[in-house]
């Protein structure tokens, strides 16, 4: 007999993986931008 799947497990997993990956992407891109602009400005002597 097949065991019924709890759909909420899949819902929570889908939301968790999407939120985590999106936050990592936003944070990574933002920090890379700030670091690159700091390097450029340091070279200008700002």
């Amino acid at each position, binding site marked *: 007999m097949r065991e019924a799947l709890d759909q909420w497990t899949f819902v929570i997993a*889908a*939301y968790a993986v999407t939120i985590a990956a999106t936050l990592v992407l936003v944070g990574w891109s933002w920090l890379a931008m700030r670091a*690159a602009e700091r390097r450029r400005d340091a*070279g200008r002597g700002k």
Partner: protein
Amino acid sequence: MHGFANPARFLRIARWLTPALVLSGLAMAAAALAWGLTGLPAERLQGDSVRILLVHVPTAWLGMAGWSAIALASLVELVWRHPLAAIAARAAAAPGAVFAALCLATGSLWGRPAWGTWWVWDGRLTSMLVLLFLYFGYIALAGAVDREDGSSRIPAIFGLVGAINIPIIHYSVIWWNSLHQPPSLSMGSSAMAAEFLIPLAASALGFSLLFGGVVLARMRAILADAQAEARLRRKALEA
């Protein structure tokens, strides 16, 4: 259009637009996902797993939109030699790949309770997986060209050729028999009830704003690195 090709003008706009897109996108996506978890009723046939569509559909749309942006920027680069076009194409690649991967992951998580399987080799799923591999190829190729000072026309041509996969993904559920349902949304019509359509639209808009903010942030990073490198080269030549 060439007015926006000026990096100084682009930076003036991007400086305020980047945080505006990121913050509004975060707020709208968070509100839509909270709505999806707490405010949506279970659907008659799909049950609670219908809530997964609020993350699956926007990630699928952005996975395809990312490559469409690469193809459009590549065309602009090849035809008009727009100085920011190559930067825009490179900036769209990583977020596009992330959203294509998320589309596949959330699709699997939806498919297991709905279809009874994590994966099937049908037209829609396979063409989406091909899109993810195209992203990996583009990122590797653009990185190699930048490292070796090669011609930026090579990744641009790859970006244009790869765009053939976008209509294949879209029409795959019409052309071939598939477990994946046909499009629920088309121009001017919807097979979805308004109670699902409104939070889905909010989620798609929120993630799209975030995508725009991320692409702008990555363009600013690439541009700043290029400016710093150009200054170092000038100094080296003067010394």
